[in-house]
C-alpha cells in the first residue's frame, strides 16, 4: 500500500549527508526569508499580478535573468567544490569528497551552467531585446512564452530537488551517457532527476524556439526585411531555428532512456539487444548544436556592440549573416566529433573532422567582420567593448583548441582529457558567458532606466579575464600531461597537483569577479540618479530598441517606427528624429496564470516519475492536458488600450523624464566609495534603529 502511495519515496530518501542537509537548510532559510519579506511588505498580490502571471516578454526576460543569475552562483559553488577537491586530492590525500559525491557535483555543475545559466540568460536577452529590435509589441504567442518560462522554472526546481527532498543527483557526467545511466549501473533516483529536469525545461525551450521563430518571421516592423534585421535578431533567429531542429531529439532521447529505466525496456542497455552507441549518437546530435544555440545569440550581441561603440555600420553585414547561417547549418553535421574514439573507422571520422573544420570558416568570417567594423571607427572602450575584447582573446584560444580536437588522430590523444575540458570552458565562458555579460552591460540602461557603473564593471571584467586564464591555461597543460577529466583523485607521482592548485586559485579570482558584478549592480542602484538614462538612447545606438524609452512602456512602442535601412534608428536620428507621434489603439495580451498551472502539473508528473508514484504521474499528466484544454477555450486573451489612453501614458512618462534631474556629470562610484556608502548606511540603520520604520 505504502509503495503504491509513495513509490520509492521513503524515509531513507530524506537528506542525510552533510551536503544535502546543508543544501536543504540553505534553501528552506532562503524560501522563508523570501516569504517573510513578501508578507511584511504586502507584496504577494503585486508579485502574482505584475510578475508571475505576466506575459510581457520584458518581465519574463527579467525573471529569466534573476533565476539564471541565482543559478550562476549555485553552479559556481559547484565549480569551487570541484576545484578544491582536485587541488587537494593527490597521492595519500583523498580530498574532502567521496568519488560518488564528486561525480554528482560535476554533473550538476554542467547541467546547471548549460541549461539553467547559459540558456536562462540567452532566453532572457532574447525575450527582452528581440521584440524591441524588430519593433514588436509582444510575441506571436505570449502564452507559449510564459509556459516555456515556467517549464524552465520546473527544471530549475527539479535539478535542485534532491536538496529539499533527498535522494541524490546523477553521478554520470552532464550528458548521462548510456549504459552508465541505465538502471544496471545507476540504480538510484539521480539519473531520474536528471532526465526530468532536462525533459521539462527542454520542452519549454522547444516552445520558446517555436514562438521566437514565429515572432521574428511574422512580427517585424513595417519595412524591416530580413536583410535589414539587426544582428542580434539574426543570431537569435538562427539559434531558435536550431532549437526547433534539435530539441525534439533531446526530448525523444530522454524519453527512450526513461522507458529503459521506468519500464525496463532495452534501448540503450548492455544486454538484450540494447545499443548504447545509439544513445551517444542521439544525445550528441542534440548536444553539439546546443552549444551553437548558446553562442549564436552571443555572436549577435558582439556584432551589435562592436558596431555601436565603433560608431560605424557593421562591415560585411551580409557575410556576417551568411556566417551565422553557415554555423547553423554545419552545426547539425558535426556531432560525431564528440566520439571519434568510439571506433567508427577512418572514413567516418575524417568526414566529421572536415565538417568540423568547415564550421571554423563562417566563425572566422564573423571575427574578420568585427575587425573591419572597427577599422576607421571611433571606438569607445566601455565595459561591453571590454567584454568583447576579452571574448576575442579567450574565444580564439578555445577555437584553436577546438580545431585541434577536430583532427581525429589528435583527438584520440586529447579526448576526455582536461585539454577538452579547458576547450569547452573557453568556448562557453569566453564565448557565451562573456557575450551575455557584454549584452547585459550594453542593454542594462534599456532594461533598468539607468546604466551600470562603468568603473566597478571594469574591475569585475579584469578579475574575470585574469582568473579565467589562471584557471584554464593550467587545464590545457594538464590535459597535455595526460590528465583525464572528472578525476576525484590522482597519484602524487603525476606532478599534477601544483597546476590543479593554480587552477583553483584562478577559480577564486573569477569568484571575486562575480562578487564585483554583484557590487557593480548594487552600486549602480545606489547611484542611479547620476546614471539615469532619460533619452532612451544612452550609447548613441543604431537599432530600434533605442528608439523607445528606457525602460520601455509595457507596449514597447507607442507608435511603431517605420524601417527604411539596416541601422534603422541611426537613420531616423540622421533624418531629424522620430516624427510627431500619431497614436492609435493598441491590442495587448492579457496576463495569464495558465502557464504556471500547466508547468506545475508537469512538474508533479515528473516528480512522480522520479519516485515511481504511478497514480500521481497520471494525475499530473491529466492535469497538464486539462489545463491546456481549458486555456484553449479562453477566448478573452487580449484587451485594447485606446489611443487616448496611450497618449495620456506617453505624456505622463515624458513629463516624468523631463522632471527627472538630468544626469550629473559625476564620476562613476569606485569600490572605496561604495564601501564607505554601505558602511555609513549600515551604521545609520543601527544607530537610529531605522528598521522600525520599514
Amino acid at each position, binding site marked *: 500500500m505504502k509503495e503504491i502511495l509513495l513509490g520509492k519515496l521513503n524515509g531513507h530518501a530524506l537528506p542525510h549527508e552533510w551536503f544535502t542537509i546543508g543544501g536543504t537548510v540553505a534553501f528552506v532559510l532562503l524560501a522563508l526569508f523570501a516569504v517573510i519579506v513578501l508578507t511584511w511588505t504586502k507584496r504577494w498580490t503585486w508579485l502574482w499580478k505584475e510578475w508571475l502571471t505576466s506575459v510581457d516578454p520584458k518581465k519574463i526576460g527579467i525573471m529569466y535573468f534573476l533565476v539564471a543569475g541565482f543559478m550562476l552562483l549555485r553552479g559556481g559553488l559547484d565549480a569551487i567544490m570541484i576545484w578544491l577537491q582536485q587541488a587537494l586530492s593527490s597521492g595519500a590525500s583523498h580530498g574532502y569528497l567521496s568519488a560518488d559525491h564528486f561525480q554528482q557535483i560535476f554533473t550538476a555543475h554542467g547541467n546547471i551552467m548549460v541549461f539553467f545559466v547559459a540558456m536562462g540568460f540567452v532566453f532572457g536577452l532574447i525575450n527582452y531585446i528581440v521584440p524591441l529590435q524588430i519593433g514588436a509589441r509582444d510575441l506571436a504567442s505570449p502564452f507559449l512564452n510564459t509556459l516555456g518560462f515556467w517549464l524552465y522554472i520546473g527544471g530549475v526546481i527539479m535539478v535542485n530537488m534532491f536538496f529539499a527532498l533527498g535522494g541524490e543527483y546523477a553521478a554520470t557526467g552532464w550528458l548521462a551517457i548510456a549504459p552508465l545511466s541505465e538502471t544496471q549501473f545507476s540504480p538510484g533516483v539521480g539519473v531520474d532527476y536528471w532526465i526530468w529536469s532536462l525533459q521539462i525545461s527542454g520542452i519549454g525551450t522547444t516552445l520558446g524556439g517555436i514562438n521566437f521563430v514565429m515572432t521574428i518571421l511574422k512580427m517585424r516592423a513595417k519595412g524591416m526585411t530580413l536583410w535589414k534585421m539587426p544582428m542580434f535578431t539574426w543570431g537569435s533567429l538562427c539559434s531558435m531555428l536550431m532549437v526547433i531542429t534539435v530539441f525534439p531529439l533531446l526530448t525523444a532521447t530522454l524519453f527512450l532512456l526513461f522507458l529503459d529505466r521506468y519500464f525496463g525496456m532495452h534501448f540503450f542497455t548492455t544486454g538484450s539487444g540494447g545499443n548504447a552507441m545509439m544513445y551517444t549518437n542521439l544525445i550528441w546530435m542534440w548536444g553539439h548544436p546546443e552549444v551553437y544555440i548558446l553562442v549564436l545569440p552571443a555572436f549577435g550581441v558582439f556584432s551589435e556592440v562592436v558596431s555601436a561603440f565603433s560608431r560605424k555600420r557593421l562591415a560585411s553585414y551580409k557575410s556576417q549573416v551568411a556566417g551565422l547561417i553557415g554555423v547553423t547549418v554545419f552545426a547539425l553535421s558535426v556531432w560525431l566529433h564528440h566520439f571519434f574514439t568510439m*571506433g567508427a573507422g577512418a572514413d567516418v571520422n575524417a568526414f566529421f573532422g572536415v565538417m568540423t573544420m568547415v564550421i571554423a570558416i563562417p566563425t572566422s568570417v564573423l571575427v574578420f567582420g568585427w575587425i573591419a567594423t*572597427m577599422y576607421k571607427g571611433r571606438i569607445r572602450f566601455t565595459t561591453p567593448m571590454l567584454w568583447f575584447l576579452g571574448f576575442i582573446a579567450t574565444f580564439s584560444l578555445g577555437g584553436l583548441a577546438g580545431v585541434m580536437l577536430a583532427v581525429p588522430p589528435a583527438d584520440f590523444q586529447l579526448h576526455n582529457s582536461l585539454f577538452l575540458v579547458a576547450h569547452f570552458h573557453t568556448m562557453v565562458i569566453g564565448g557565451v558567458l562573456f557575450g551575455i555579460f557584454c549584452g547585459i552591460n550594453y542593454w542594462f540602461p534599456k532594461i533598468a532606466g539607468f*546604466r551600470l557603473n562603468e568603473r566597478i564593471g571594469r574591475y569585475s571584467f579584469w578579475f574575470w579575464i585574469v582568473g579565467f586564464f589562471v584557471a584554464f591555461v593550467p587545464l590545457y*597543460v594538464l590535459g597535455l600531461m595526460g590528465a583525464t577529466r572528472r578525476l576525484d583523485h590522482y597519484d602524487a607521482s603525476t606532478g599534477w597537483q601544483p597546476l590543479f592548485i593554480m587552477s583553483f586559485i584562478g577559480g577564486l579570482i573569477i569568484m571575486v569577479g562575480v562578487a564585483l558584478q554583484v557590487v557593480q549592480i548594487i552600486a549602480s542602484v545606489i547611484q542611479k540618479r547620476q546614471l539615469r538614462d532619460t533619452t532612451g538612447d544612452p550609447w548613441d545606438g543604431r537599432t530600434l530598441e533605442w528608439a523607445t524609452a528606457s525602460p520601455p512602456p509595457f507596449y514597447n512602442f507607442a507608435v511603431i517606427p517605420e524601417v527604411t535601412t539596416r541601422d534603422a534608428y541611426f537613420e531616423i536620428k540622421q533624418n531629424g528624429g522620430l516624427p510627431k507621434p500619431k497614436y492609435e489603439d493598441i491590442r495587448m495580451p492579457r496576463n495569464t496564470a495558465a502557464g504556471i498551472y500547466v508547468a506545475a502539473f508537469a512538474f508533479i508528473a515528473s516528480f512522480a516519475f522520479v519516485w515511481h508514484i504511478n497514480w500521481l504521474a497520471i494525475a499530473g499528466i491529466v492535469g497538464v492536458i486539462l489545463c491546456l484544454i481549458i486555456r484553449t477555450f479562453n477566448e478573452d486573451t487580449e484587451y485594447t488600450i485606446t489611443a487616448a489612453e496611450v497618449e495620456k501614458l506617453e505624456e505622463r512618462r515624458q513629463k516624468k523624464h523631463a522632471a527627472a534631474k538630468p544626469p550629473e556629470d559625476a564620476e562613476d562610484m569606485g569600490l572605496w566609495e561604495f564601501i564607505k556608502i554601505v558602511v555609513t548606511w549600515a551604521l545609520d540603520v543601527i544607530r537610529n534603529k531605522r528598521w522600525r520604520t520599514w
Partner: protein
Amino acid sequence: MPQKRKKNGIGRTVGLIFLAFASLALIIKALMHGHNIALFNSKGMIAYDERNLIIFTAVVLLSVALPTLFVLFFTAWRYRESNSKATHNPNAVHNKLLVPAIWLIPTACMLVLALVMWPATHRLEPQKQIDESVEPLTIQVVSTRWKWLFIYPEQNIATVNFVQLPVNTPVEFELTADDAPMSSFWIPNLSGQLYTMTGMVNRLNLMATVAGDYPGSSAEINGAGFAEMKFTARASSRADFDQWVQQTKQSPKVLDAAAYSALLKPSENNPPAFYAATESGLYDTVVMRYMGPSDGHPNHSHGHHE
C-alpha cells in the same frame, strides 16, 4: 560616459597583458617542475605521429590566429576615440576585396589542415595494423568494474591492471567490456584512446619504441571506481618480455570461470594480478554474451559459460 583615461592608458594595458601572459607561462613552467608532458613525450610510433599532428595543427592555426589577433587588438587601439591622429570615418566604404578575403583566408587555412588531416586519419586509424606483413602480438582487453583484464591468447596468460609488451613489435589490443559501462582505454605515451564497450570489439594497434613503464587509465567516466581504474603498461625488450611470460606461467592463479566471475564483481583500486592460464575462448564468450537475441541480463549468466 566615456571614461576619463590617461593618454597612454591602452598602450600600457597592452604591455601589461603581454607581461601577464609571459608570467603565466613561466609560472606554469615552474609548477610543472620537470614532470613530463605525456602527449609530447611519446614512447611509441603512433603516439609520436599523433604528437606531430597536434603540433602541426597548432602551428598552422597559430600562423593565422596570431596575426588576426594582432590586427584586431591593434585596430581597436588605433581607432580609439581619444586618438586624434587616426582617421575616423564612420562612412568608410570597404575595399571590394574585403569580402572575398575574409572568406578565403580561413578557407585556405582549413583546406591545408583538411588535406593533412584526411590521410593522417586513415594512416592513424586504430584498427589499421602497423605493418601488414607482420602478424601483431594480440592482447585482449576486458574492462570490468573497475579494473583492466588483459588476456594474451597466444601465450595463454592473463593479467589485471598490468600489461607488458615487447618494444618494436606491433601490438593489437582487442578491446571489449563486460558488465561495465563504456570505458576508454588510454596509454598516452604509446597511443591515443579507444572506447571499450560490451558486445563490441574495438582494435587498437600500436608499437612501443622505447622501453619503460607508462601509465594507462580509463579516460571515460564509468562509475564510482573510475579515478582508480589505472594500469601500468611496461614496454620491454623481446627477451625481457619472453622471460616475463614464462614467469607469469609460474603464477599459482588461473583465470577460470570462478576467478573471472570474481573479477566481474565491482571493486576499486585493485593491485596487479597475474594468471598462469586462462579458460579457452573466454574472450569470445565475453563478447558473444551480448550478441544473442535474448540473452537476458548479463548479471544472471556470468560465470556459467563453457
